[in-house]
């Protein structure tokens, strides 16, 4: 039995705090009928629920990657336990084969040989330049290298069948849930799901799950024997990098919003409600901030932060901690520079709301300003906040990619979509080009951002007061 030590990174703390807050908000919504009704409308939107399913897959990957630990090193009994320098996550443990089976350098998806020629000693023929065989990719095939296509096809088919079986189990569970909830027979429940007559868009969720199962199960299955997305310059599996990037993207999207939200909401409402010099001050503030090119401001802040981190190595016991703090600092910097848009939006809306008669009625009762803001204005701005939150999320995931590309993004040791793209960009120039790193990063980012945007659309439609 190997011992381990739980490592709680700051970002892990934030993520699990967010999960707790999310559950709390869920309970609050369940007790608040108009909010519940609005979220039911989200639940009834097919596109929204399909997007939410995809998002959920990403979130699960991100959460698995947010439980960190250090392995205990083998030591003599009776000695004080010492732990490995490397900080691993639950995802690393699950994807251990992907993490550990590194090749020498680039290899194409499903390749059995490297992408670069090497000089090797072949017994009997002396030194030969050829594409050496991969250590792990397709190793189970042995000499039958020509049978890759057949093997992949057959394995994928078997995995797909298992995927379908797993999906059928989920379908059965869904039918059971609908039947129990609606108090109808299982046949009737199945028909309702099929015809889309359930209040929750079960058919969209199940269809998306079918697609997810059909893609993910064969992919993971094949990943055991091949590098399905190829390997990068140092021979690391690209699929593993994609999985690790998800957490980075999610943190940047979520934590940054946590920084922007209080600033934007507080300043926006205060400016709109109190008017006068407060409004002038806040407007000047965000106009000044807006007039500085965003990337330059971020670059300056990141470089300063880097100096601070580099001069205080004693703060961090592991490299992971350093990279983590740098990530959080980046989120903070991004947040400080990107609250202006939402703030302006909320200020305008507050200007409109404060003239409404129910606010004036409250003023006529002598209700204090802060109470009016909390009771009357904030709840009526929540739909904008929710929409902006989800919209900003996708924007920030993209922003991280751009910043890492410019070289002011996350720590180089941390895998993110941005670093993947950045590392791959030089190789596009070689002939034949190395395209898979870029393609995998783009595809994953595209799916994540598209799902977030579609979900935001569904949320916006559901919270639109005109539609309600």
């Amino acid at each position: 039995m190997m011992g381990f030590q739980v490592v709680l990174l700051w970002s892990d703390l934030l993520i699990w705090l967010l999960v707790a807050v999310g559950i709390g908000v869920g309970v609050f919504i369940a007790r608040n009928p108009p909010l519940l009704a609005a979220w039911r409308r989200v639940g009834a939107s097919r596109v929204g629920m399909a997007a939410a399913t995809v998002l959920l897959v990403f979130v699960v990957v991100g959460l698995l990657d947010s439980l960190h630990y250090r392995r205990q090193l083998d030591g003599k009994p009776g000695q004080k336990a010492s732990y490995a320098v490397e900080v691993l996550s639950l995802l690393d443990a699950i994807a251990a084969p992907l993490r550990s089976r590194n090749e020498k350098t680039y290899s194409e998806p499903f390749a059995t040989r490297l992408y670069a020629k090497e000089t090797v000693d072949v017994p009997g023929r002396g030194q030969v330049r050829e594409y050496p065989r991969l250590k792990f990719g397709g190793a189970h095939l042995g000499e039958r290298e020509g049978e890759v296509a057949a093997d992949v096809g057959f394995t994928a088919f078997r995995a797909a069948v298992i995927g379908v079986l797993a999906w059928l189990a989920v379908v059965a569970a869904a039918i059971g849930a609908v039947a129990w909830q609606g108090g109808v027979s299982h046949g009737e429940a199945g028909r309702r799901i099929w015809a889309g007559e359930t209040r929750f868009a079960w058919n969209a969720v199940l269809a998306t799950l079918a697609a997810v199962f059909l893609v993910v199960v064969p992919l993971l299955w094949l990943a055991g024997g091949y590098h399905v997305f190829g390997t990068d310059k140092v021979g690391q599996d690209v699929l593993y990098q994609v999985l690790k990037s998800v957490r980075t993207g999610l943190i940047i999207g979520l934590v940054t919003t946590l920084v922007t939200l209080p600033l934007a909401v507080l300043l926006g409402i205060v400016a709109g409600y109190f008017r006068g010099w407060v409004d002038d001050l806040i407007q000047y503030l965000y106009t000044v901030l807006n007039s500085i090119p965003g990337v330059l401001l971020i670059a300056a802040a990141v470089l300063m932060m880097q100096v601070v981190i580099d001069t205080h190595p004693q703060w961090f016991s592991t490299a992971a901690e350093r990279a983590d703090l740098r990530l959080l600092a980046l989120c903070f910097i991004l947040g400080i520079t990107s609250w202006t848009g939402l703030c302006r939006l909320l200020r305008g809306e507050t200007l409109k709301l404060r003239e409404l008669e129910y606010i004036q009625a409250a003023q006529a009762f002598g209700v204090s300003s802060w109470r009016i803001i909390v009771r009357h204005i904030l709840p009526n701005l929540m739909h904008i906040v929710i929409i902006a939150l989800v919209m900003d999320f996708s924007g920030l995931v993209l922003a991280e990619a751009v910043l890492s590309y410019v070289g002011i993004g996350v720590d180089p040791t941390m895998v993110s979509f941005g670093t993947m793209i950045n590392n791959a960009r030089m190789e596009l120039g070689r002939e034949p080009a190395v395209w898979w790193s870029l393609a995998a990063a783009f595809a994953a980012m595209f799916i994540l951002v598209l799902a977030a945007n579609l979900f935001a659309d569904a949320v916006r439609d559901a919270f639109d007061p005109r539609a309600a």
Partner: protein
Amino acid sequence: MSDPLLSVRDLRLGFTAGRRAKTLLAVDGISFSVGSGETFALLGESGCGKSATAQGIMRLLPGAGRITGGSVRLAGEELLNLAEADMRRIRGARMAMIFQEPATSLNPVLTVGQQIGEVLSRHRGLAGPEAAAAMAGLLKQVGIADPERRLNEYPFQLSGGMKQRVMIAIALAGEPELLIADEPTTALDVTVQAQILDLLAGVQAARGMGLLLITHDLGVVARMANRIGVMYAGELVEVASREAFFTAPQHPYTRALFSALPEVSRRGHPLLTIPGQVPSLEAMPAGCRFADRCGQVMAVCREHSPPWREIAGGHAVRCHWQAADDGEANGSPGKRAELQSPDRHLLEVADLKVHFSIRRGILQRTVGYVKAVDGVSLALTPGRTLALVGESGCGKTTVGKAILQLIAPTGGSVRLGATELVGMKPRRLRAVRRHMQMVFQDPFASLNPRLRVGEIIAEGMAALRVGSTADHGPAVAALLAQVGLPAEAADRFPHEFSGGQRQRIAVARALAVQPELLICDEPTSALDVSVQAQILNLLKTLQEALGVAYLFITHNFAVVEYLAHDVAVMYLGRIVERGSAEEVLGNPRHPYTRALLSAVPVPRLEGRPEAIKLPGETPSPAKPPAGCHFHPRCIHASEACRRDYPAGTRVSETHTVVCHLYP
């Protein structure tokens, strides 16, 4: 006999709703016809399908709208199966439409000339100088002075009435045979409404057009219509000629509409109200749609939809009930439960001024003032109602808010009881707020949609610390009972209530802190006639029971006649005449009051004996005319009027008028 100009037969149209694409019928089988030179009025409350009918005839239904059956013939030509391209040839050229809101029906970035020219080139092929001449002619026809200059102006340079005139000119540009006017004067002031109605009648007579007039206002119907169709919940329930309609209305709904109107003859009596509200499209009753609200309901009404029944030539009604010929049992003008007015004034406003500064330039320097309220003096005794009357923009709402100190007055004094409110510290002001409250105009904007009704009503009690928190629950229930709502309402959200019910909630909220003064800012102007009657009755019974004084801000003279003890008439930030209701309404002295009173269309066969037509519109309060503010529109204006603002003259103990005619 040749075909009538417009003939609608059994028209059905609806709106698709929900994922299953179920069509909810908004108009369910209506038939009528409009002849050349005739005005047919479609009358009904909001949500009855009047506007949907007009849109259906023009085939301009919104995306979710579907015409599901029937026929619409224009001079014999069937419109419903025309191709869209052919329909465009007919729209604008053979039938045209005027909309309710002149402010939004003109494109703000095009000049008036460009917008009229569009129709001219499309339907009459006119361009260049020919078109310019035609445009000038059209503008002259709709009574716009200096048409050549106006053609190059943008809509924002025109006043509301002027915009509606331009809309009419655009509608006339294609020389249509049929004009559809959808509530053409609802957004306008009474004096401007009178001008526009005259214009429409004149244009119609000159061109021999058919006019389909859609309105909810019985006064407008009496002024304009030849024949009337009453719509209720998507069906026509009565069709009659003007004479028959006003002398012998047959359908219980029509009768109820008449008796719900507040009038001077009904003072002291509660108004007859129609209980409930128009059924929603999803829950149409199977039998007669009016059955649930009808006083004459019989068993057969709930099972069978009544057939058409011809009463006399051209007068038909859809009702099972046969009206007995008892005429209208409308008692003599009522004795009034006159409250003895104590000498003590509850509210005294003296020389109240609210000026808003106009700032320009980089440094935001004040370059002038909008004198929204410029020296208003009022007095109100406990338990009485003072009506503050005026057209939009005269500053009457600002007076109400300045009294409540929601807007800081620039000058003057507001005394509530013995306390001077102007310049009071906010902390002390809170204690005074218990004694005065406000009911707002729009019941849809005055309740926070995210709070429960109980929380809304209890808010004032909590903020002003009336009673302990434990008492609030029973207090809310008592208040709800007082305004005629069930106690369960406290746990529901505002959007579950209709406009009238919401206004009741707003009244309950104001009464929660037991004020002695209630400022009602047009509390019924957003409501239908039948619901308006419910609210007026409620306000009246509350006054009798609680002795609350009302400052009633309104533009509706019928409401004033019914409710007010005293009246003050405002024009451009100043009061021009005040006195008791009998004095001001029965014997108006100021030319403006007289014109206002005569411009109100009366829902009776015989109109006002003489109608004083006011030219022009209310000037901007930023640049009031020199001398008497009213002189540019006054027919009696003299040299003195142009020079000096008149001083007040006492006509009687209580009646004061501000005019040079009464030295």
